Protein backbone atom coordinates (compact mmCIF):
# COMPACT_ATOMS: atom_id res chain seq x y z
CA UNK A 1 0.00 0.00 0.00
CA UNK A 2 2.82 2.38 0.82
CA UNK A 3 4.12 2.07 -2.74
CA UNK A 4 0.74 3.02 -4.15
CA UNK A 5 0.58 6.19 -2.06
CA UNK A 6 4.15 7.04 -2.95
CA UNK A 7 3.34 6.81 -6.65
CA UNK A 8 0.86 9.64 -6.09
CA UNK A 9 3.50 11.81 -4.41
CA UNK A 10 2.28 15.37 -4.65
CA UNK A 11 4.23 18.29 -6.00
CA UNK A 12 4.90 21.27 -3.78
CA UNK A 13 2.48 24.16 -3.93
CA UNK A 14 4.16 26.89 -5.96
CA UNK A 15 2.87 30.45 -5.62
CA UNK A 16 4.59 33.42 -7.20
CA UNK A 17 7.91 31.59 -7.42
CA UNK A 18 7.85 30.25 -3.85
CA UNK A 19 7.22 26.67 -2.87
CA UNK A 20 5.18 25.52 0.10
CA UNK A 21 4.64 22.03 1.50
CA UNK A 22 1.36 22.66 3.27
CA UNK A 23 -1.77 23.31 1.25
CA UNK A 24 -3.51 24.74 4.29
CA UNK A 25 -3.18 28.44 5.07
CA UNK A 26 -4.63 29.95 8.20
CA UNK A 27 -5.57 33.35 9.54
CA UNK A 28 -4.60 34.80 12.90
CA UNK A 29 -7.76 36.73 13.78
CA UNK A 30 -10.44 36.23 16.41
CA UNK A 31 -8.66 33.72 18.66
CA UNK A 32 -9.59 33.89 22.32
CA UNK A 33 -5.94 34.32 23.22
CA UNK A 34 -2.56 34.31 21.54
CA UNK A 35 -1.27 31.05 22.96
CA UNK A 36 -4.33 29.21 21.59
CA UNK A 37 -3.66 30.83 18.21
CA UNK A 38 -0.02 29.77 18.19
CA UNK A 39 -0.89 26.19 19.19
CA UNK A 40 -3.75 25.91 16.68
CA UNK A 41 -1.55 27.14 13.84
CA UNK A 42 1.18 24.70 14.83
CA UNK A 43 -1.36 21.85 14.89
CA UNK A 44 -2.62 22.82 11.43
CA UNK A 45 0.85 22.54 9.93
CA UNK A 46 0.25 25.74 7.97
CA UNK A 47 3.25 27.64 6.63
CA UNK A 48 1.41 30.65 5.28
CA UNK A 49 -0.40 32.70 7.91
CA UNK A 50 -2.37 35.83 7.20
CA UNK A 51 -2.18 39.08 9.13
CA UNK A 52 -3.97 42.41 8.89
CA UNK A 53 -2.60 45.96 8.80
CA UNK A 54 -4.01 48.27 11.47
CA UNK A 55 -3.10 51.36 13.44
CA UNK A 56 -0.78 50.89 16.39
CA UNK A 57 -2.71 51.43 19.60
CA UNK A 58 -0.85 54.38 21.08
CA UNK A 59 -2.49 53.98 24.49
CA UNK A 60 -1.40 50.33 24.68
CA UNK A 61 -4.85 49.25 25.81
CA UNK A 62 -4.88 46.49 23.23
CA UNK A 63 -2.46 43.64 22.75
CA UNK A 64 0.83 44.28 21.04
CA UNK A 65 1.33 43.46 17.37
CA UNK A 66 1.03 39.91 16.13
CA UNK A 67 4.77 39.64 15.58
CA UNK A 68 5.28 39.41 19.33
CA UNK A 69 3.55 36.05 19.13
CA UNK A 70 4.40 34.66 15.69
CA UNK A 71 7.97 34.14 14.56
CA UNK A 72 8.29 35.59 11.05
CA UNK A 73 11.20 33.24 10.42
CA UNK A 74 9.00 30.23 11.04
CA UNK A 75 5.91 31.34 9.14
CA UNK A 76 5.37 33.04 5.82
CA UNK A 77 3.44 36.18 6.72
CA UNK A 78 0.77 37.04 4.19
CA UNK A 79 -0.67 40.50 4.81
CA UNK A 80 -4.24 41.16 3.75
CA UNK A 81 -6.23 44.25 2.85
CA UNK A 82 -9.24 43.14 4.88
CA UNK A 83 -11.66 45.89 5.71
CA UNK A 84 -10.92 47.88 2.53
CA UNK A 85 -13.95 48.92 0.49
CA UNK A 86 -12.20 50.72 -2.37
CA UNK A 87 -9.33 49.90 -4.70
CA UNK A 88 -7.55 53.02 -3.46
CA UNK A 89 -7.69 51.89 0.18
CA UNK A 90 -6.60 48.36 -0.68
CA UNK A 91 -3.58 49.67 -2.59
CA UNK A 92 -2.69 51.93 0.34
CA UNK A 93 -2.86 49.04 2.82
CA UNK A 94 -0.86 46.78 0.50
CA UNK A 95 1.95 49.35 0.23
CA UNK A 96 2.07 49.74 4.01
CA UNK A 97 2.18 45.95 4.39
CA UNK A 98 5.07 45.61 1.96
CA UNK A 99 6.96 48.32 3.80
CA UNK A 100 6.86 46.16 6.93
CA UNK A 101 9.54 44.29 5.09
CA UNK A 102 8.58 40.61 4.99
CA UNK A 103 7.63 39.91 1.38
CA UNK A 104 5.92 41.27 -1.69
CA UNK A 105 2.85 39.03 -1.39
CA UNK A 106 -0.52 40.53 -0.60
CA UNK A 107 -3.88 38.88 -0.01
CA UNK A 108 -6.03 41.39 -1.81
CA UNK A 109 -9.55 41.98 -0.56
CA UNK A 110 -11.83 44.74 -1.79
CA UNK A 111 -15.13 44.29 -0.02
CA UNK A 112 -18.35 45.43 -1.65
CA UNK A 113 -21.07 44.63 0.87
CA UNK A 114 -21.00 44.87 4.65
CA UNK A 115 -23.50 42.13 5.39
CA UNK A 116 -22.06 39.40 3.20
CA UNK A 117 -18.49 40.73 2.87
CA UNK A 118 -18.72 39.70 -0.76
CA UNK A 119 -16.05 41.27 -2.94
CA UNK A 120 -16.43 44.32 -5.18
CA UNK A 121 -15.02 42.69 -8.28
CA UNK A 122 -14.60 45.95 -10.22
CA UNK A 123 -12.55 47.45 -7.38
CA UNK A 124 -10.70 44.18 -6.98
CA UNK A 125 -9.61 44.12 -10.62
CA UNK A 126 -8.54 47.76 -10.49
CA UNK A 127 -6.47 47.22 -7.34
CA UNK A 128 -5.00 43.98 -8.69
CA UNK A 129 -3.77 45.68 -11.87
CA UNK A 130 -2.20 48.54 -9.89
CA UNK A 131 -0.46 46.22 -7.45
CA UNK A 132 0.80 43.79 -10.10
CA UNK A 133 2.32 46.78 -11.93
CA UNK A 134 4.08 47.74 -8.68
CA UNK A 135 5.65 44.30 -8.39
CA UNK A 136 3.33 42.77 -5.82
CA UNK A 137 2.52 39.05 -5.88
CA UNK A 138 -1.23 39.40 -5.65
CA UNK A 139 -3.41 36.68 -4.14
CA UNK A 140 -6.90 37.87 -4.92
CA UNK A 141 -9.88 36.97 -2.74
CA UNK A 142 -12.86 36.81 -5.08
CA UNK A 143 -16.29 35.44 -5.78
CA UNK A 144 -16.68 31.92 -7.13
CA UNK A 145 -17.21 33.50 -10.55
CA UNK A 146 -15.27 32.13 -13.50
CA UNK A 147 -15.18 35.30 -15.56
CA UNK A 148 -13.79 37.40 -12.70
CA UNK A 149 -11.28 34.66 -11.90
CA UNK A 150 -10.06 34.66 -15.50
CA UNK A 151 -9.74 38.45 -15.49
CA UNK A 152 -7.74 38.34 -12.25
CA UNK A 153 -5.40 35.71 -13.66
CA UNK A 154 -5.02 37.69 -16.89
CA UNK A 155 -4.21 40.79 -14.79
CA UNK A 156 -1.20 38.91 -13.45
CA UNK A 157 -2.41 37.71 -10.04
CA UNK A 158 -0.18 35.00 -8.57
CA UNK A 159 -3.19 33.16 -7.21
CA UNK A 160 -6.92 33.45 -7.47
CA UNK A 161 -8.83 32.79 -4.24
CA UNK A 162 -12.52 32.14 -4.76
CA UNK A 163 -14.71 31.78 -1.70
CA UNK A 164 -16.40 28.55 -0.61
CA UNK A 165 -19.06 30.69 1.10
CA UNK A 166 -19.03 34.10 2.85
CA UNK A 167 -16.18 35.00 5.21
CA UNK A 168 -16.76 33.68 8.71
CA UNK A 169 -20.02 31.92 7.74
CA UNK A 170 -18.86 28.32 8.14
CA UNK A 171 -21.38 27.32 5.46
CA UNK A 172 -18.86 25.18 3.61
CA UNK A 173 -18.55 24.74 -0.14
CA UNK A 174 -21.78 26.07 -1.63
CA UNK A 175 -21.00 25.69 -5.32
CA UNK A 176 -18.56 22.92 -6.07
CA UNK A 177 -19.16 23.24 -9.80
CA UNK A 178 -18.02 26.87 -9.84
CA UNK A 179 -14.86 25.99 -7.95
CA UNK A 180 -14.10 23.06 -10.27
CA UNK A 181 -14.58 25.10 -13.41
CA UNK A 182 -12.37 27.92 -12.07
CA UNK A 183 -9.66 25.39 -11.25
CA UNK A 184 -9.97 23.73 -14.65
CA UNK A 185 -9.71 27.00 -16.57
CA UNK A 186 -6.92 28.80 -14.67
CA UNK A 187 -3.24 28.05 -14.94
CA UNK A 188 -2.34 29.94 -11.74
CA UNK A 189 -2.99 28.17 -8.41
CA UNK A 190 -6.55 28.31 -7.09
CA UNK A 191 -6.79 28.61 -3.32
CA UNK A 192 -10.28 28.49 -1.82
CA UNK A 193 -10.56 31.26 0.74
CA UNK A 194 -13.35 31.64 3.30
CA UNK A 195 -16.43 29.72 4.31
CA UNK A 196 -14.99 26.39 5.39
CA UNK A 197 -16.55 25.43 8.72
CA UNK A 198 -15.35 21.98 9.62
CA UNK A 199 -13.09 19.18 8.43
CA UNK A 200 -15.56 17.67 5.95
CA UNK A 201 -15.91 21.07 4.25
CA UNK A 202 -12.14 21.24 3.83
CA UNK A 203 -11.95 17.69 2.54
CA UNK A 204 -14.75 18.18 0.00
CA UNK A 205 -13.16 21.43 -1.14
CA UNK A 206 -9.77 19.80 -1.71
CA UNK A 207 -11.47 16.92 -3.54
CA UNK A 208 -12.46 19.43 -6.23
CA UNK A 209 -8.79 19.61 -7.20
CA UNK A 210 -7.98 23.08 -5.93
CA UNK A 211 -4.43 23.84 -4.85
CA UNK A 212 -5.14 24.79 -1.26
CA UNK A 213 -7.46 26.36 1.29
CA UNK A 214 -7.20 29.44 3.48
CA UNK A 215 -9.32 29.52 6.62
CA UNK A 216 -9.49 31.44 9.87
CA UNK A 217 -12.79 31.32 11.74
CA UNK A 218 -13.12 27.53 11.41
CA UNK A 219 -10.17 27.24 13.76
CA UNK A 220 -10.55 30.39 15.84
CA UNK A 221 -14.24 29.85 16.61
CA UNK A 222 -14.04 26.10 17.22
CA UNK A 223 -14.62 24.97 20.79
CA UNK A 224 -11.13 23.45 20.69
CA UNK A 225 -9.11 25.39 18.10
CA UNK A 226 -5.98 23.26 18.49
CA UNK A 227 -7.88 20.02 17.86
CA UNK A 228 -9.65 21.64 14.90
CA UNK A 229 -6.30 22.73 13.53
CA UNK A 230 -5.17 19.13 13.59
CA UNK A 231 -8.45 17.96 12.03
CA UNK A 232 -8.07 20.49 9.23
CA UNK A 233 -4.52 19.35 8.54
CA UNK A 234 -5.76 15.79 8.06
CA UNK A 235 -8.81 16.89 6.08
CA UNK A 236 -6.79 18.95 3.61
CA UNK A 237 -4.29 16.13 3.16
CA UNK A 238 -7.06 13.52 2.81
CA UNK A 239 -9.01 15.62 0.33
CA UNK A 240 -5.90 16.27 -1.72
CA UNK A 241 -4.97 12.60 -1.78
CA UNK A 242 -8.53 11.58 -2.69
CA UNK A 243 -8.40 14.02 -5.60
CA UNK A 244 -5.07 12.61 -6.77
CA UNK A 245 -6.39 9.07 -6.30
CA UNK A 246 -9.28 9.75 -8.66
CA UNK A 247 -12.67 8.94 -7.24
CA UNK A 248 -14.99 6.19 -8.49
CA UNK A 249 -17.80 7.07 -10.83
CA UNK A 250 -21.12 7.82 -9.18
CA UNK A 251 -24.19 5.72 -10.10
CA UNK A 252 -27.88 6.08 -9.45
CA UNK A 253 -28.28 2.37 -8.72
CA UNK A 254 -26.42 -0.10 -6.54
CA UNK A 255 -23.66 -2.36 -7.78
CA UNK A 256 -22.90 -5.32 -5.53
CA UNK A 257 -19.43 -5.52 -4.07
CA UNK A 258 -19.68 -9.29 -3.49
CA UNK A 259 -19.97 -11.94 -6.25
CA UNK A 260 -23.50 -12.59 -7.49
CA UNK A 261 -22.52 -16.11 -8.49
CA UNK A 262 -21.83 -19.02 -6.17
CA UNK A 263 -24.85 -18.38 -4.02
CA UNK A 264 -26.33 -21.35 -2.17
CA UNK A 265 -29.02 -23.33 -4.02
Amino acid sequence: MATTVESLADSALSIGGREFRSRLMVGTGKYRDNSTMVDAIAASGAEIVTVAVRRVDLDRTKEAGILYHLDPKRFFLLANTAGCYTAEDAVRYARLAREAGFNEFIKLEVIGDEETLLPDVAGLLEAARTLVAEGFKVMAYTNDDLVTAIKLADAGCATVMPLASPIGSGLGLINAYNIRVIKRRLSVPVIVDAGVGTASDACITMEQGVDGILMNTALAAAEHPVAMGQAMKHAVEAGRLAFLAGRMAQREVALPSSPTTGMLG
Partner: protein
Amino acid sequence: MSEEMTVTVNGEERQIAGNSTALDLLHSLALDPRAVVVELNREIVRRPALGNTPLCEGDEIELVHFVGGG
Protein backbone atom coordinates in the same frame (compact mmCIF):
# COMPACT_ATOMS: atom_id res chain seq x y z
CA MET B 1 13.36 75.03 24.46
CA SER B 2 11.91 74.63 21.01
CA GLU B 3 8.29 75.48 20.47
CA GLU B 4 5.71 72.75 20.29
CA MET B 5 3.61 71.93 17.27
CA THR B 6 0.44 70.00 16.70
CA VAL B 7 0.35 66.94 14.49
CA THR B 8 -2.28 64.25 14.03
CA VAL B 9 -1.12 60.73 14.89
CA ASN B 10 -3.50 57.87 14.12
CA GLY B 11 -6.41 60.26 14.03
CA GLU B 12 -5.61 62.06 17.29
CA GLU B 13 -3.98 65.45 17.72
CA ARG B 14 -0.74 65.47 19.68
CA GLN B 15 1.68 68.16 20.79
CA ILE B 16 5.28 67.36 19.92
CA ALA B 17 8.54 69.30 19.98
CA GLY B 18 8.83 71.74 17.11
CA ASN B 19 11.95 70.25 15.59
CA SER B 20 10.89 66.59 15.77
CA THR B 21 11.67 64.05 13.08
CA ALA B 22 9.53 61.00 12.37
CA LEU B 23 12.06 58.93 14.33
CA ASP B 24 11.79 61.31 17.31
CA LEU B 25 8.03 60.78 17.29
CA LEU B 26 8.44 56.99 17.42
CA HIS B 27 10.92 57.31 20.28
CA SER B 28 8.60 59.63 22.19
CA LEU B 29 5.87 57.01 21.86
CA ALA B 30 8.27 54.20 22.88
CA LEU B 31 7.73 52.45 19.54
CA ASP B 32 10.37 50.27 17.92
CA PRO B 33 10.96 51.65 14.39
CA ARG B 34 11.47 48.08 13.13
CA ALA B 35 7.98 47.08 14.26
CA VAL B 36 6.04 50.02 12.80
CA VAL B 37 5.42 51.44 9.35
CA VAL B 38 5.11 55.22 9.14
CA GLU B 39 2.90 57.06 6.69
CA LEU B 40 3.29 60.86 6.58
CA ASN B 41 0.56 62.77 4.76
CA ARG B 42 -0.32 59.60 2.83
CA GLU B 43 3.28 58.92 1.75
CA ILE B 44 5.23 56.04 3.28
CA VAL B 45 8.44 57.07 5.04
CA ARG B 46 10.98 54.32 4.58
CA ARG B 47 12.78 53.20 7.72
CA PRO B 48 16.25 54.56 6.86
CA ALA B 49 14.72 57.98 6.17
CA LEU B 50 12.83 58.31 9.47
CA GLY B 51 15.67 60.16 11.21
CA ASN B 52 15.97 62.81 8.52
CA THR B 53 12.27 63.34 7.91
CA PRO B 54 11.24 66.49 9.77
CA LEU B 55 7.65 66.80 10.91
CA CYS B 56 5.68 70.00 10.41
CA GLU B 57 2.70 71.65 12.05
CA GLY B 58 -0.51 69.99 10.86
CA ASP B 59 1.13 66.82 9.55
CA GLU B 60 -1.01 63.74 9.45
CA ILE B 61 0.85 60.62 10.52
CA GLU B 62 -0.30 57.02 10.51
CA LEU B 63 1.61 54.41 12.48
CA VAL B 64 0.61 50.87 11.56
CA HIS B 65 1.66 47.32 12.29
CA PHE B 66 0.43 43.76 11.77
CA VAL B 67 -2.39 42.42 13.88
CA GLY B 68 -4.34 39.17 13.79
CA GLY B 69 -6.48 38.79 10.69
CA GLY B 70 -7.80 36.33 8.16
